[in-house]
């Protein structure tokens, strides 16, 4: 993705499935790209952070991350946003402990997580407040007609 397609938004961190920086969506489910082979994704839909530019939930998350100072160096942010998006889709309510547990697979070495958790809580609470129901399991159902594809940003 990074070298062949120039989709450099997906960040390489630990490269062995621990840090979550490289999290992407495969068939609408977050996966660790560093331990997922491209050849194993034959026929699957792969969405990187670039593919979420126009996605409604991710836009709300970006605004919340900015407002809550949920990033400093920004290295973990693409993975954070992909994982957070899935959590926003699936979470019935915005319980802080549940969000901390659910986001524990994405490491941030700058922020101390407080801003990140506040940002995610606020988006979940706002969406539930607008009567947008959680989707149990997330996954294939949830992108529906708003499916977005990863695309080459620069040629």
């Amino acid at each position, binding site marked *: 993705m990074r070298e062949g397609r120039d989709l450099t938004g997906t960040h390489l961190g630990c490269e*062995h*499935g621990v840090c979550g920086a490289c999290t992407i969506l495969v068939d609408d489910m977050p*996966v660790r790209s560093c*331990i*997922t082979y491209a050849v*194993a994704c*034959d026929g699957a839909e792969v969405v990187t952070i670039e593919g979420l530019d126009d996605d409604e939930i991710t836009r709300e998350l970006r605004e919340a991350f900015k407002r809550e100072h949920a990033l400093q160096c920004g290295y973990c942010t693409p993975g954070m946003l992909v994982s957070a998006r899935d959590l926003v889709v699936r979470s019935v309510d915005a319980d802080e402990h549940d969000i901390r547990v659910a986001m524990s*697979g994405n490491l941030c070495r700058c922020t101390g997580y407080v801003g990140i958790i506040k940002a995610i809580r606020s988006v979940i609470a706002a969406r539930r407040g607008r009567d947008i129901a959680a989707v149990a399991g997330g*996954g294939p159902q949830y992108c529906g007609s708003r499916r977005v594809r990863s695309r080459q940003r620069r040629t």
Partner: protein
Amino acid sequence: MKPVNFAYQRPRHFGEAMGLLADGGAHAKVLAGGQSLGPMLNLRLVQPELIVDITALDELKRAEKLGDHLVLGACVTHADIEDGRVPDVTNGAMPEVAAGIAYRAVRNRGTIGGSLINADPSADWVSALSALGAEAIVRRADGARTLAVEDFVTGALETVLGANELLEAIRVPAQSASAQWGYYKVCRKTGEYAQAIGAVLLDRPRNVFRAVIGATERKPLVLADARALFGGSDDLAQFDRGAADAMLQSIGMTDALDRQIHTVALARAVRQAAGA
């Protein structure tokens, strides 16, 4: 952090997979989700010549109730179990264990069979399935065999699986409505491999009382009859920490702190099962 070069095959039929593994011999490795194998490949702890990805085999994704058992194909993911996309016969015990495995991104690809065959003592299914009294169904070209999970796992990262054999499915017995279950793991960090695991199942109508102490750096300590830990009774209130400690000593756990952590994990599982 790159794996060695290897050939990759993703067969569509069981026979094809068995053929590839037979041809590949000791240089072939099965990939059933890759959430443990992936890191090991990247760290070059494993250097295969051939990877046989079995996740496209439909028969390994089946989930069906057969009589008083549930049969789950080896490639059913943790998230499938967590979200209830497959049936449950354990009154919610298995979905809860699944939900506690690593992180969601890992659960989306990691599989129950892959986890069991990896046989990491600190992973959840090795201990949880032993406590549930589950069995492993192992297939080879000319037949199949079924054995208890605690007999399938022979040690840390070791199973009985021979060359030319594949773990096909897990067979889980259905619990009574009144069954009491507790599962507790101690982790340094949420989602990490466990430092200690305790599990207990008391299902009186089926005459089942099992207990497991896992994450012991060897195969888990499985008690098919747990009464020895409860003063000879099936009363969960009679849990005897001294008996658990003695058993841990007898399997060679010399460090007192280690024994303490494992005993506490089991005590908390027992408390959960008792509903306290």
